[in-house]
């Protein structure tokens, strides 16, 4: 939902005012709220958290050089700048186009994880399924070694060998 004042940013603050029995609702963004002198001390929203995470990263240019800074998704026209502002992506292809820029952000938002583990579509080609399964086993192996569960680690290693 868009902010009713700036019509640009996402509304994260929802105010209900009841005056003489008449109820009015206002949906605005954090920025416009502070401009209107409305104090906010709510928990950080996910989008805000993401924008914050993005903001504390080095600038696109520092991180990727001028070429990446100007990168535009050929499918949806999305840019890193929009991602930085909105916190959501434009299309599934963005995960490949902006992979390098997204990785540190994903790692922070996802407790250090950067690869999928869990359900995969049954319609995936066998090779892709195998790839996902191997990366999941690799992850479990790392956890088993970390927990010093060597029996399980050996089992997992054997499973990986079979798959490979």
């Amino acid at each position, binding site marked *: *939902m*868009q902010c009713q004042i700036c019509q640009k940013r996402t*509304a*994260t*603050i*929802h105010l209900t005012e*009841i005056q003489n*029995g*008449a*109820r009015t609702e206002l*949906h605005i963004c954090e920025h416009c709220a502070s401009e209107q002198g409305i104090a906010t001390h*709510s*928990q950080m*929203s*996910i*989008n805000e*958290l*993401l924008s914050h995470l993005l903001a504390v990263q080095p600038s696109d240019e520092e991180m990727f050089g001028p070429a990446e800074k100007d990168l535009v998704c050929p*499918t*949806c*026209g*999305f840019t890193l700048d929009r991602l930085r502002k*909105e*916190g*959501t*992506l*434009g*299309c*599934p292809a963005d*995960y*490949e186009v902006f992979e390098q820029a*997204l990785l540190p*952000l*994903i790692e922070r*938002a*996802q*407790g*250090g*994880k*950067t*690869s*999928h*583990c*869990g*359900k*995969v*579509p*049954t*319609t*995936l080609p066998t090779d*892709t399924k195998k*790839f*996902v399964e191997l*990366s*999941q086993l690799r*992850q479990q192996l790392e956890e088993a070694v970390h927990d010093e569960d060597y029996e399980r680690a050996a089992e997992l290693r054997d499973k990986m060998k079979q798959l490979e």
Partner: protein
Amino acid sequence: MELTEFSHDINEWFSGSGPLADIVVSSRIRLARNLAGHRFLNSCSNEEKAEILEKLKSVLMPLDLGDKVFYVSVDKEPELNRNFLVERHLISRHHAMATGPRGAVIARREFFTAMINEEDHLRLQVLKAGCQLRACAEQIDRIDSQIEGRVEYAFNPRFGYLTACPTNLGTGIRVSVMLHMPALKLTNQIEKFMNAAKDMNLAVRGLFGEGTEAASDLYQISNQVTLGVSEKHIVSEFENVIIPEIVEYEKAARRQLLTNDTDTLDDKIARAMALLQNAHLISSQEALFLLSHLRLGLNMHEHMGASTPAIERLCALRASTKEQDKLTIRTINRLFMLTLPAHLQVNYGKSLDATHRDALRAKIIRDALTQQS
């Protein structure tokens, strides 16, 4: 389907039944999915949104859910009806307020909703009463697999199911439980609990999701990490570690109230009874908090055998209320839901200003808690 067909009663997941129901009100699992070959919603034109909506609606409506389903054109519904669906947790506030073509496919018994064009193209949710996460997980997985046989989801071998926001990436799963924790509040331990939840990498929200305060001492706890941990692992951690730990925390606070601070406990219960039985104007917020104390008293009596002067009076009231409104946890939850602003207005048949709502709410509660002569 008319909303008034089910607006006079509570849904199954809010009936106060199920495992650990004295503390765990309900369990919910949602999956975020997007269609391959389409942009995410913030880059979609209304035409593309309409195309996605039609495609998903035609797949979802004939699904075998073991229950009848109905469809709501969320974008065409008046604001009051959208708020009503939010109050019943059938759609999210975000879905109610979003723009463009969007809809929801809802099971008649309200255990399942598919929101189309919310933040992602598809948000599936399964809700059950009490602590039933594993059952929710099995059911939502079956539904998701049925859909997956008919459409192609956006999926990437490295990142899993692709979502508009990277915080939902991977499994796209959000596991959440709604917990009733009045004793932690009364013993001033809520902050401690919040910090413990944060340490466990959990999000804590109020009754109606992000940004809402914990009305009626109800808190929703959910996972934050969706990538790199399997659905099974997340669910089993909730069932075997997180929920038992939090439940024990609240139980210890209830025991503490009973042994060391009976006056505080009795004061809350007795005041709640007095106000709810006598008030002529009552706001939604006040009603939620007072009903929370009645729920605490009844649950402590039923599950811990608690018997204090105020709890005894509450039990006496239970025995003397009208048969159809017999004062049980279900009745309290029913009063709780039916007196929310949109419910009151849908059931009254027209919109009401705040004062009239407060008067109507007070009357409904007063009538339900009236002793039979």
